[in-house]
């Protein structure tokens, strides 16, 4: 809506711009500036690590430095306190003693246990930091282990050819063994066949020999006539009797 006011004002101010009305939105985008600065949320200036120095837990050190050229701050403080007391601006009442005791107990407690609590808080923060540090170190260690494993794997890949050589040798030996085995089997088969032929020949020869012997014996037995058989037997008996006499005669002597 404001842009229309601006446009109408521009039109009345410079009549030559009246024809520029159709450029309205474009003019609007050009005249208004959006998002030129940096976004403010992220680069917040970091907080200081320690607070400003303070004396007596209440009065900042800058106050003392500010006063030193003009007047001593302790003198000023004492003067103010005495003034307040004497003019009864600050009245000493029951509250004074209560305040004294409370503040005394507080100061005593802070002086005595302050460093302990401070160390405790520091230790808590250090524990948190140590946890994060440990997580970071564990992650780094994990990644380092992965890198080492990867490197060793790569080295192993380089030595893969040994494996292939051994496998090749194995296969060659297996082939050799199978070849020899089959060669031997062939040899045995052939020898078997040849042995068969030899044994067949031997058997035939034996059979022929036996047959011949039987034929010869049969014919010899046939050729012995009965007369010759009786003469041969009588002669054998006479020889035997002679031999028996000779045998008997010897032991007597």
């Amino acid at each position, binding site marked *: 809506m404001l842009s229309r006011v601006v446009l109408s004002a521009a039109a009345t101010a410079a009549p030559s711009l009246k024809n520029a009305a159709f450029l309205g939105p474009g003019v609007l985008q050009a005249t208004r500036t959006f998002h030129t600065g940096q976004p403010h949320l992220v680069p917040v200036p970091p907080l200081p690590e320690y607070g400003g120095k303070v004396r007596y837990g209440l009065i900042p050190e800058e106050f003392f430095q500010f006063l030193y050229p003009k007047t001593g701050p302790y003198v000023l403080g004492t003067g103010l306190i005495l003034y307040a007391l004497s003019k009864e601006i600050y009245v000493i009442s*029951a509250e004074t003693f209560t305040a004294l*005791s409370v503040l005394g107990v507080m100061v005593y407690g802070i002086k005595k246990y302050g460093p302990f609590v401070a160390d405790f808080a520091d230790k808590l*923060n250090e524990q948190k930091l140590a946890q994060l540090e440990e997580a970071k170190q564990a992650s780094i260690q994990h990644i380092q282990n992965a890198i080492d494993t990867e490197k060793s794997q790569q080295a192993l890949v380089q030595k893969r050819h040994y494996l292939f050589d051994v496998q090749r040798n194995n296969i060659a030996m297996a082939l050799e063994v199978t070849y020899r085995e089959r060669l031997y089997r062939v040899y045995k088969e052939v020898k078997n066949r040849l042995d068969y032929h030899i044994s067949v020949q031997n058997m035939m020869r034996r059979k022929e020999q036996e047959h011949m012997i039987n034929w010869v014996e049969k014919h010899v037995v046939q050729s012995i006539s009965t007369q010759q058989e009786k003469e041969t037997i009588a002669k054998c008996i006479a020889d035997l009797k002679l031999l028996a006499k000779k045998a008997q005669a010897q032991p007597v002597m």
Partner: protein
Amino acid sequence: MNENLFASFIAPTILGLPAAVLIILFPPLLIPTSKYLINNRLITTQQWLIKLTSKQMMTMHNTKGRTWSLMLVSLIIFIATTNLLGLLPHSFTPTTQLSMNLAMAIPLWAGAVIMGFRSKIKNALAHFLPQGTPTPLIPMLVIIETISLLIQPMALAVRLTANITAGHLLMHLIGNTTLAMSTINLPSTLIIFTILILLTILEIAVALIQAYVFTLLVSLYLHDNT
């Protein structure tokens, strides 16, 4: 000199406007929040304390009871800081006002009891009769238990008020004694001052303990009723 002993318990006003609201709203300013992991020592110790308190208090509750953990932890922190700040001289302690303590006790107690009656009505009614009572005593005991239940919020509020008020009054009285005796007899002044110091230590303990007791009892009522 204060006009009377109870002047410090008047709800303070600034030009007719209640300053008690500002005083009640002051303690949260002492508990900073931080969006960083590593903080300064104040925030670290406070966060550690709050973690310790919440763990101690809420472990005995079941899931339904633990929805009250924000309420109870903020309650104990509020009462503790308010009581401790009230020990400073010339300060006003809101927990000395019965109105505020009733405003804290009644809604919390009523919330716990009504929650118990809504969800587990049998269990809630069973609290009226302890186990193992002889039969003739039952009617009387039910009445006694009912009264004891109804008096719990009053007891919570009055306990806190009375303890803190009594402590502050005693400190005032003994302070007055010290003031009066300082002109008469100096050694007895020192003795009475020692008593005052001891009382201060007691008051600090009482401030913390009362906060603890209040919250513990509320959590107990909660435990009964979840």
